[in-house]
């Protein structure tokens, strides 16, 4: 009998060379397509490059000075921040409420769940182009329905205050199922004996919700919030399809870059914006990874 048959630990880490061989192709592609462009971006942000070519000159920090002093920069930050904040919170609340409603045995639950989950898998651009038809001021079905029940019919696509609302509306429509899915996972992970114990202790409904359900769901919900927030930061498709890239009330950071690079042809300034976003992304990604690690540790402790 060989000694190794009884080992419980895997044998000492095999030659890293083989491992490197497995990992290398993917990493090489990622470095070429992601890391290199970022470095190149940093270089470009110090030049006055133009989209239509022509001689490229180093301009030092000029692009950054322009960027930080632009009204559109602060505007883009505000819009992006507002978008992330509102969309994620509304989706969280709605998704959680929906999950609570779907938690128990509902007839046809599997089917209902699948149907509810479809919107988040669809193409954002294609859907928002179609939402333009629904929200249209002249013949859109939404306003016609509102007229039927004698409610005011706001101009979703033209009223300045409502344009961001329209985009939020479409985003929330698409991603609430995501929050619902994760909330369900969180709710289902709470072992039933805790509820039974609470029942024995005759804890009130609200008490149960506040001190058992919510805290135990919190980690997963936190993860969901982080995931959605990072996605919402990238928001570009909906803006392009519903209002176009240069509308001050909906211009997110990505839309601003598009306007600067492809309409104003200022590649240098666009790259400076890219660098600023990069810094934000690194910060967010770090938070995200720490959070996942913490979750992993918690789960490990819970299982131990």
């Amino acid at each position, binding site marked *: 009998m060989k000694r190794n048959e009884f080992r419980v630990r895997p044998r000492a880490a095999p030659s890293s060379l083989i491992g490197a061989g497995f990992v290398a192709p993917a990493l090489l592609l990622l470095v070429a397509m992601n890391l290199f462009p970022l470095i190149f971006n940093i270089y470009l942000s110090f030049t006055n490059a*133009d*989209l*239509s*070519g*022509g001689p490229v000159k180093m301009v030092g920090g000029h692009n950054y000075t322009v960027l930080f002093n632009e009204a559109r920069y602060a505007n883009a930050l505000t819009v992006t921040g507002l978008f992330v904040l509102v969309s994620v919170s509304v989706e969280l609340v709605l998704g959680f409420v929906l999950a609570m409603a779907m938690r128990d045995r509902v007839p046809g639950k599997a089917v209902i769940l699948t149907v509810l989950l479809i919107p988040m898998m669809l193409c954002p651009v294609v859907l928002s182009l179609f939402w333009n038809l629904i929200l*249209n*001021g*002249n*013949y859109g079905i939404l*306003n016609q329905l509102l007229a039927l029940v004698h409610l005011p*019919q706001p*101009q979703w*696509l*033209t*009223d*300045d205050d409502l344009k961001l609302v329209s985009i939020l509306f479409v985003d929330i429509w698409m991603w609430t199922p995501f929050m619902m899915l994760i909330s369900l996972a969180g709710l289902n992970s709470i072992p039933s004996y805790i509820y039974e114990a609470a029942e024995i202790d005759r804890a009130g409904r609200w008490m149960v919700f506040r001190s058992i359900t919510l805290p135990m769901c919190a980690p997963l919900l936190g993860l969901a919030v982080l995931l959605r927030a990072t996605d919402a930061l990238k928001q570009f498709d909906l803006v392009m399809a519903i*209002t*176009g890239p*240069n*509308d*001050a009330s909906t211009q997110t950071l990505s839309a601003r870059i598009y*306007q600067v690079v*492809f*309409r*104003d*042809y200022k590649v240098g300034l666009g790259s400076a914006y890219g660098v600023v976003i990069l810094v934000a992304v690194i910060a967010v990604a770090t938070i995200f990874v720490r959070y996942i690690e913490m979750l992993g540790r918690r789960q490990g402790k819970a299982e131990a």
Partner: protein
Amino acid sequence: MPTKPIVTFAIVAGAACSLLFVLGCRQKEQPSEPASGSSTAATAPAPKKLLTIWWAQWAPADGLQELANDFGRTENVEVKVHQIPWASFQDQVFQEFGKNQTAFDIVVGDSQWLGRGATKGLYVDLTSWLPSAVDLKTLHPVALKYLAEYPTGSEHYYGAPAETDAMGWAYRKDWFEDPAEKAAFKKAFNRELSVPQTWDELKVVAEFFTRPDKKRYGDVLITGRGYDDIVMGFEQVLYAFGGAWSAPKTLKVQGTLDSPDAVRALDFFKSLLKYSPPGGSKLGYGEALEPFVNDSTAMLMNYFAFFPDLAKKMSGKVGFFAMPKEGDRRFASLGGQGFSISNKTSSPQQDLAKKFIAWFLQSDTQKQWVRKPGGFTANAEILKSDAFRKATPYNAAFAESMDIAQDFWNVPAYNELIAASAQQLGEALDGKKSSKDALTQMASEHEKILQQATP
């Protein structure tokens, strides 16, 4: 169990083969010649030369392709008109110019692009060639000025008029001729219901037809904020009321763009919005067609290029008229594009391009051009001729409009000027600012952009 590895190998092998296939395709997609790969194989023994023209996606481009096939037959050349959606036409063209060799030889560019094309060396200078290729007197002076010259008035040419266009009005002839409507109008205003000659008349007619409870509205204006829609829509009103983008000689913006006349113009433009269907404060060129086509609106403002299709779709129900006047001032926003030759294509291709443009501008060709869907000519004789004016319901109005056309800035920084204008005008229309504030701020932003502009 033994089948699973086979399946996996099959998938991997399939992926590898597909990759090789795509790589092979890439070879075909990147030919050495500055042309997008021709799908029609040359049947002539000698390889046919290929002339590539880039234009926007619309009916005139189809017309150009048909017309160009005639040229191709006589010269044994293949002409390919490549169409790009309007929304990304500008982006793609200027992005393509960033390469060492453009995929196109000719670009049918907007009049505003001339400045950028000229100063960045993207367009070939046609100053010495154009007068020899065509008798400049046969071209309508307005078309020549705006679609070919940069700087305007300098007689330096970087383009040649291809599609001439201007803004006009379409109206529901059947509503105007309806006896009940005519009677009601006569009773209310004591004159006949007819095509408006002045802006005030237009407002009166628009108000007459506005009946929201019956989902009827008076006018549809061009107010889109995406590109230059709202700027072009407003431009003709601005000039009719005595305003201008800049003073004629000094080119100073402040004092002209924010003058009391200009403020009156913007106020008037805003007042017309009252008679527009809901959502009318943000309608691009294409979107504006919808409230007219779905029988909601009496009058539609738009470029003549859209009218042939409209006439076809609503034949018998629609008529057309040129921009009304204010006092004795009448202006129509210019549209249209001109042929410009790319500097980043080979010399023989540039010569071929010149040959094509010269052929296009001949009177005989222009006579064919106006028969193509959406084809509008710059040839002054044809425009004056009765035959042309009577050929379609909109030709007469178009010919009139060419005499009163007015364009926007065509300097290299035009895009920023347009963006600033669109924003300020938009805010004024949305009621966020008074007309005076919007125009004052727009004027100061224009000044700043013009001063900062680096060629």
